[in-house]
C-alpha cells in the first residue's frame, strides 16, 4: 500500500513554507529530501554510537563499525552484488567515477585506446574520462543521441571496436530523463571485451537494479540522490576487476603495512577506502535504503510512473511548451522550454510561487549543444510528489507566460 499522505509526513521539509507559500520541491534530480528516520538515525548515532571505525577494540568503535559494515551489506543486497567487498564507499558518484577512471585507467588504459561516453552524460561522467585520456593519450569518443534524446544504438555499434576499453553510460539521463537500454549496451560492449561503467545516479532510486543480472562491470551512485546524506556514494565493481586495480588514494586503513621501503595494501573493500570513511554518511545511506525497501521499490516505481505520465500529459496543455527529451522510455525528469522565455526568468518567478525547479544546462552541456539551446527548465520528481503539485507547476508556468508575454 502506498499512502502518499503518510509518506509526505515522513519528510519534515515538505511541510515548510517558502515566501509564505507551500514548498513544491521539483528538484529531486539535483538532490532528494530526507525522511525523518534518516535524520533521526544521524542524531542518534552522533548522540550514542560515534567512534572511528575499524581500528579500535572498544565498545563504541565496535558499534559504529558494525553499523558501517551493516550498511555495506544493505547496499550489497539492494543492488544484488555478489559480495560485500564489492561495495566501496565514496564521496559520491563523481568521486566513484574518478576512482575508476584513475585506478582502472592507470592499470589498463594505453595510448590509442578508446573510451566511449554517451553525448547525454552528466559532466561527472565525461570530465574524468577526458582527464584520463589526456594523461594516457587515449581517445574519448561520444556516442551520439537522437533528437528524442535516446542513445543512437546503431552509431554505438559502429563505434565499438577492439580498441574500445571502457564504455561509460548513465542508467537514466539527468537532463532528459531518458532510460538508456543499458542491458543491450553492456552486452554489446562485452562482445568487444570493453568494460562498462553504469552511472546509476538517476536510476537507483527509481527502479530495482540488479548488478549481477545487468552484468555491468562498475555501477556508481550518490547517497544524497536516494534520500541519504551528502558526502556519501557507492562504487560497485566486480571483485576480480577491483582486485586488479591499484589503489586510488593512500592513507590510513587502506594498507596492511607501511614502511618507507615498502607498503602493502589491504584487501577489498578497504584498499579503496583510504582515511576515515564517512561512516555516518554510510549509515544514513543504509537507513535510507531500508526506508525505501520497506515502502517497496515496486510501489515507488508504480506511483512515480503514474506521476510522470500525468506530468507529461499535463505539461502538453501548456501553450508554447516544448519538451526537450521525448524518449520512449523516461523516468523522473521532464525538461522543457517555454516559448522564448529564458529559463532563468521562469525559474525566478516559479521560485516566488514556492516551486523549486532547476534551470540551466544541468551539468550536461553537450546535450544542450545537441539541441542547440542554452538551457532548459527541469522538473524532477520523487515519490513524495503529487499530481496537485504538478497542477501547481502548470499554473505557475501560465503565470510566467503572463509576465513575459
Amino acid at each position, binding site marked *: 500500500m502506498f499512502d502518499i499522505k503518510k509518506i509526505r509526513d515522513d519528510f519534515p521539509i515538505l511541510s515548510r513554507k517558502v515566501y509564505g507559500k507551500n514548498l513544491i520541491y521539483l528538484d529531486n534530480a539535483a538532490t532528494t529530501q530526507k525522511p525523518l528516520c534518516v535524520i533521526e538515525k544521524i542524531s542518534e548515532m552522533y548522540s550514542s554510537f560515534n567512534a572511528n571505525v575499524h581500528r579500535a577494540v572498544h565498545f563504541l568503535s565496535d558499534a559504529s563499525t558494525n553499523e558501517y559494515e551493516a550498511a555495506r551489506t544493505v547496499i550489497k543486497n539492494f543492488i544484488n552484488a555478489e559480495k560485500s567487498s564489492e561495495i566501496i564507499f565514496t564521496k559520491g558518484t563523481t568521486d566513484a567515477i574518478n576512482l575508476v577512471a584513475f585506478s582502472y585507467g592507470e592499470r589498463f588504459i594505453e595510448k590509442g585506446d578508446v573510451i566511449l561516453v554517451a553525448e547525454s552524460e552528466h559532466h561527472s561522467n565525461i570530465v574524468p574520462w577526458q582527464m584520463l585520456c589526456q594523461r594516457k593519450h587515449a581517445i574519448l569518443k561520444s556516442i551520439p543521441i537522437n533528437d528524442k534524446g535516446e542513445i543512437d544504438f546503431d552509431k554505438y555499434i559502429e563505434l565499438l571496436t577492439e580498441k574500445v576499453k571502457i564504455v561509460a553510460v548513465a542508467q537514466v539521463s539527468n537532463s532528459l530523463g531518458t532510460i538508456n537500454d543499458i542491458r543491450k549496451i553492456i552486452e554489446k560492449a562485452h562482445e568487444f571485451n570493453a568494460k562498462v561503467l553504469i552511472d546509476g545516479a538517476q536510476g537507483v532510486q527509481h527502479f530495482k537494479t540488479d548488478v549481477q543480472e545487468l552484468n555491468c562491470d562498475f555501477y556508481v551512485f550518490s547517497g544524497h540522490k536516494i534520500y541519504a546524506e551528502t558526502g556519501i556514494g557507492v562504487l560497485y565493481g566486480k571483485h576480480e576487476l577491483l582486485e586488479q586495480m591499484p589503489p586510488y588514494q593512500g592513507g590510513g586503513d587502506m594498507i596492511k603495512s607501511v614502511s618507507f621501503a615498502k607498503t602493502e595494501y589491504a584487501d577489498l573493500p578497504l584498499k579503496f577506502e583510504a582515511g576515515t570513511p564517512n561512516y555516518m554518511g554510510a549509515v544514513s545511506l543504509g537507513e535510507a535504503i531500508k526506508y525505501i525497501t520497506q515502502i517497496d521499490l515496486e510501489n515507488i516505481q508504480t506511483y512515480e510512473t503514474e506521476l510522470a505520465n500525468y506530468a507529461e500529459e499535463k505539461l502538453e496543455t501548456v501553450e508554447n511548451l516544448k519538451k526537450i527529451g521525448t524518449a520512449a522510455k523516461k523516468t523522473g525528469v521532464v525538461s522543457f522550454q517555454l516559448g522564448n522565455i*529564458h*529559463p*532563468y*526568468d521562469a525559474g*525566478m*518567478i516559479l521560485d*516566488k510561487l514556492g516551486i523549486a525547479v532547476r534551470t540551466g544546462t544541468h551539468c550536461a552541456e553537450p546535450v544542450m549543444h545537441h539541441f542547440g539551446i*542554452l538551457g532548459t527548465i527541469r522538473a524532477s520528481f520523487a515519490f513524495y510528489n503529487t499530481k496537485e503539485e504538478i497542477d501547481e507547476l502548470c499554473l505557475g508556468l501560465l503565470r510566467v507566460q503572463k509576465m513575459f508575454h
Partner: protein
Amino acid sequence: MTTEEVQNQIIEEFSLFDDWMDKYEMIIEMGNELTPYNEKYKTPANIINGCQSRVWLNADYIDGKVIFTADADAIIAKGIIALLMNILSNRTPKEIIETELFCIDRIGLHQNLSPTRANGLVLMIKQIKNYAIAYQAKTNE
C-alpha cells in the same frame, strides 16, 4: 542627482508595491527600456559568464565620465542591469568607486545579487568598479 539620490528615488518608486509580482513587473519593464546594447560589443571579452544568464558589459570613458552599456539574455537580469545603469553609468570614476549599492537590499532584490546566485550580476558590479578604478588610475597618471 547623486548616486545616493537616484537610489533613494528607486526605493521610493518600489515602495509603492507590496507584492513581489508587481516589483518584478517593474523590473521587467525597466529591462525592456534599457538602452539597446550594440551587438558588435557582444565580444568574448565583454561577456560575464554566470552559469545561468549571460551578461555583457561595455565601458567607454568620455569627458571624465564612464559610460556603461550592458545587456543580458534573461529579462530579470536585464532589468536589474537597467537599474544599475541608472545609478552608475555616466558618472566619474570617483563617484562609481564610492557608491554603496544600498537600494538593492532595500527594494528586496538582494537575492538576485547574492554571490551564490549564478547569474553574473555580482561579477558585473565587480567589473563596473574595476573599470572605474582603471580609468581613475589612468586619469591620475
